[in-house]
Structure formats: structure tokens, C-alpha cells
């Protein structure tokens, strides 16, 4: 059981690092896109508030939630391997 605990702990740490990195990167990409959109449409008014609103919309979007796949995919993969190797 020690090996399982080690796999879970190390896996959780590694995946969390990946999750945080991908989250920050994705958010910065969205920010860049919003800025480009602002400049392209030559909008006027409160730019910061508009950016903030755009990022808040992003926080509730499906794209943001897809990053949870960083945790989901490896778990599904391991479960699939266990099934294929031991039960078929």
C-alpha cells in the first residue's frame, strides 16, 4: 500500500503543478486576446473594467473547466490500464 500512497502523493503534486501552470497560461492567453479585441474594435471607455468582465466570463466558461482534464485524463488512463491488464 506504500507504493500506492507514493503514486497518489507524487501524482497529485505533479498534476497540481501542471494544472496551475496551464491555468495561468490559459488566463494570460485570454487576456491577450481580449486586449487585441479592444484595440481592433477601437473601443472607448474603461478598458480595465472591460478586461475584468471578459476574464470573469472566462472563469465561468467551459474552456476554463476543461483544464480539470489535467487531473481527469491520467486517472481515467490508469483505470483503463488496470482494467485492460488485469481483467481482459
Amino acid at each position, binding site marked *: 500500500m506504500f507504493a*500506492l500512497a507514493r*503514486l497518489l502523493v507524487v501524482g497529485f503534486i505533479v498534476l497540481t503543478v501542471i494544472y496551475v501552470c496551464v491555468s495561468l497560461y490559459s488566463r494570460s492567453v485570454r487576456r491577450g486576446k481580449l486586449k487585441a479585441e479592444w484595440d481592433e474594435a477601437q473601443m472607448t471607455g474603461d478598458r480595465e473594467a472591460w478586461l475584468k468582465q471578459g476574464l470573469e466570463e472566462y472563469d465561468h466558461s467551459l474552456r476554463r473547466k476543461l483544464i480539470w482534464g489535467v487531473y481527469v485524463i491520467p486517472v481515467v488512463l490508469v483505470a483503463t490500464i488496470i482494467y485492460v*491488464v488485469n481483467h481482459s
Partner: protein
Amino acid sequence: MGYIKWAFWIGFWLIVGGFFHYTLPQHDIVRIVNTYEERQDLTDWTRVFWSVPDDQAESLINRDVQFIQAVKPNGSAEVYRNEDTGWRWPPYFKFDTANLYTEANDAKSTKAAPEWYSITHYGWRNEYWSIFPNAVAIKPVAGPDVRIIPWVNIIILTVFFAVVWAIWVRWRRFRRARIDPVLEDIGDSFEAAGDSYQNTRGRFGRWVDSWKSKR
């Protein structure tokens, strides 16, 4: 300098290739001949080629290991070990060693009436080090000439090389934008320093020479 660079990259890719060759699953079409259990001493450096089953204390220096003996269609002998990988590396998550042993015993056939099986395994056979590939699964196949397409390996290697390529492209872009200009700068100032040293050496050398007795 060029040779060192080449040697480094050849060595690097040999290690990567060896790692994948050891770890990825391979299929052998074989006829299973027999199975046996043998006590193995696990004291020397070849310990890394044996598993650490979960219920086994790490300090254990010898234990029984199951083996599966098989013969390839061309007559060459193959021996596989049968061990749990558990939750450890490589990530096969194999727990059904006892079941596989039973299946292997059930799959024995004679030369006169051969039954062919595909053994999925990873690892290397080396007679001098007494190491064995680990059998992961046994499946009956139609005959000795069945061709098995290694989909798992194709997918894993494709993903791996895609990642390597992505890193390599970004690194090159980064180097061209950030590092090459700096190196050129350094190169320029280094040359300048070399020139001025030459001048200094000229004067200093002349001064030193002036102290030497002239013969």
C-alpha cells in the same frame, strides 16, 4: 567541440531509445512449453531488472519468482518472468500474476500439436546478467504468422515526439531571439579584448625582453 556535441546527442538518444525499448510493451508469438518457480537472489545491481511486489519487504534479498518458458516459431527459446508491477514503475499496474500463471499453465502445448499465443511483455532478456522480460498478458492467436500492430507504442511514441518537437521549436525560437544576439555581443567584445591583450602583451613582452640579458 563538434565531436563532443555529437557524442552527447547520440548518447542521449541511445538512452532514450533504450528506455522506451525496455519499458514499452512488445508482443511475441510463441508456443508455451512450461512454467517454473525459482528462488532468485536479489542482491547485486541487476536488482533494478526485477519488480518490487507490494507485499514484499524491500529488504528481502531473495524470493521465489515465477517463470514462463516458451518457444518461438523459429525454434528459439524465450523465458519470461511473471511478476506484479503493482503501483510502481513501469506503469503496467499488473496485479494478476497468479492468474497469468494459471493461464500460462493452461496454455501449454506440445510440438506435435502446437497452440500459438501472443505474449505481451516488457523488459530485456540477457543471459549473462540473468534478467528476464516480464510477461503482462497472454492471448491465443490463430497461427504463428499472425501480425500484431503495436497501437499502444505508436500512440505513445507519436505523442512523445510531438512533445519533443514542440519543445525543440520553442527553444530554437527563444535562442534566435534572446541568446544568439547576446552571444554575438560577447563574441565581439571577446575579440576586442583579445586585440587589446595582444597590444598589451606586445608592450609588456618588450619590457620583459628588455630585462633579459642579450646574448
